[in-house]
């Protein structure tokens, strides 16, 4: 039985594992562990659930809100709608992004993977593509869905529409933000190679470091905080730039740059380090 020849499919002799095959293999890896389904379920529930809940509570407590708050919501409702589901929802993307890379190391599976795909950069590239595409698709769907839900709950108090200036960009931007955030977390998982340590690091970068930076005195604090990865990235969901330092796309570009640099370091170390 061992001697049976295995038919070779076309394009096998290009010197390295064929990239299309690596994509297929990474997709198999992603869909055959439970953490993927759980993380996407958590993402969907958190984004839709919290958007509905928080906007509903806001409408319920409308009469108790200060006139200034009411005016703020009327003037700029989109970030409130998008932000209410994102705060927790983004953590699911962070956890999944870390796991996709770090679980290879914590389970020892990386050795099986690298024996099959010894060209490590191709393997990492395939992993990034295969993970980012579903996050982007689900992110965009969730983004439009949560905007629609928030908008209809808020309709009795505030009117907003995708045709208002910059609103479409902000809504599309939330999906893009989640896609880049997934890559950002994947890069950190690949760098740190331990699930717990990597998740802690990502959550610190996403949730903790921003308020800390704002404690820095005056202008310095403002500038540092504006350039922090997720703060910069979330500019794309703003209709009016928050701090006048980075525009929507500039901020998103800064977030992309952070991610690209982390990925480059992770890739360099992946090639250099022993597996």
């Amino acid at each position: 039985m061992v001697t049976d020849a295995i038919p070779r499919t076309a394009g096998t002799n290009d010197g390295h594992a064929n990239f299309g095959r690596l994509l297929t293999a990474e997709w198999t890896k992603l869909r055959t562990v439970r953490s993927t389904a759980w993380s996407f379920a958590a993402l969907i529930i958190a984004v839709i659930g919290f958007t509905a809940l928080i906007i509903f509570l806001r409408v319920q407590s409308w009469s108790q809100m200060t006139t200034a708050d009411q005016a703020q919501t009327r003037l700029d409702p989109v970030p409130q709608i998008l932000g209410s589901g994102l705060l927790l929802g983004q953590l699911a993307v962070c956890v999944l992004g870390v796991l996709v890379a770090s679980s290879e190391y914590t389970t020892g599976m990386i050795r099986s993977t690298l024996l099959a795909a010894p060209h490590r950069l191709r393997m990492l590239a395939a992993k990034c593509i295969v993970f980012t595409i579903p996050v982007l698709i689900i992110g965009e769907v969730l983004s439009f869905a949560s905007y629609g839900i928030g908008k209809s709950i808020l309709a009795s108090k505030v009117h907003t529409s995708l045709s208002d200036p910059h609103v479409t960009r902000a809504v599309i931007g939330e999906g893009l933000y989640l896609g880049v955030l997934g890559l950002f977390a994947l890069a950190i998982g690949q760098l740190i190679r331990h699930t717990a340590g990597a998740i802690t690091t990502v959550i610190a970068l996403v949730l903790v470091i921003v308020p800390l930076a704002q404690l820095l005195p005056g202008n310095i604090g403002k500038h540092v905080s504006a350039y922090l990865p997720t703060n910069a990235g979330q500019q794309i969901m703003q209709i009016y730039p928050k701090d006048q330092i980075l525009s929507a796309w500039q901020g998103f570009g800064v977030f992309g740059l952070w991610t690209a640099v982390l990925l480059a370091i992770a890739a360099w170390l992946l090639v250099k380090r022993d597996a």
Partner: protein
Amino acid sequence: MIEVKDLVKRYGETTAVDHLTFTVEPGRITGFLGPNGAGKSTTMRLILGLDRPTSGTALIDGMPYRSLPDPLRYVGALLEAKAVHPGRTAFNHLLYLAQTQGVPKSRINEVLDLVGLSAVAKKRTKGFSLGMGQRLGIAAALLGNPRLLILDEPVNGLDPEGIVWIRNLMKQLAAEGRTVFVSSHLMNEMAVTADHVVVIGRGRLIADTAMDEFIARYAENVVLVRTPQTEKLREALNGLGATVTSQQDGALLVNKTEAAAIGELAAANGVVLHELSPQRGSLEEAFMELTREDVQFHGPAGIPTGPASGAAQGGGA
């Protein structure tokens, strides 16, 4: 064929592999022996491109592992019992590996049958015993029908039936003309499996020889002789070309000579014998003696010296 040339791997101050050179030829089983911590696994990881050598090369059919097209079709490797995600089923673990090489799905069922895991193919591997994990690792190694197999301690965790199974499998694979390179820290296991043996200790090459030759050299018969006329017998034996070593209690250990020949020699010279007993030197003891200085983790007590220690010295180790 595997060619290891002047291979060195250092981790900080520690030298795990120290200027190692050897080749592994196709069509036979080459045993890779050494005490725990001798650098066997590190050497295998260097051959497989998982670790980078500090210097030197390890080539597979003239190429570094990382340059092999569809490497699983060239080389099948078993490194640790569990290089798998515990939450994934056995079938899906093999599926993603097969997909990277363009190996058809039907082959997955073939190798699962071959290792006897078909019944648990759809089970998550977290419930697998050590032996089942080992079988799954062997299934992964055979997936690409490779010409070369690198197996790190494959009998680990296997029950006696599993051990016989893996021995026969390795013999079958070698008989088909494949290269089989298998590590072990158990000399006796290798003595019944391997055709050729590469012995290392503390990362250095100690022996690279045919198994038969290794056995003949290190586990030859030794005869224990007691006589009141020690000097006379020793002279006579030296005349025959035998190697003679004295024990502390006055007994002699004689190598390279049959007991009968010693008895006849004694009679011819009028030497009285009080004892004449052949001692079968154990291969395991010979191996321990050979690698003693290179063992990294000694037990608290010294290794007891048996008659075989004389054999090893007499053999010119």
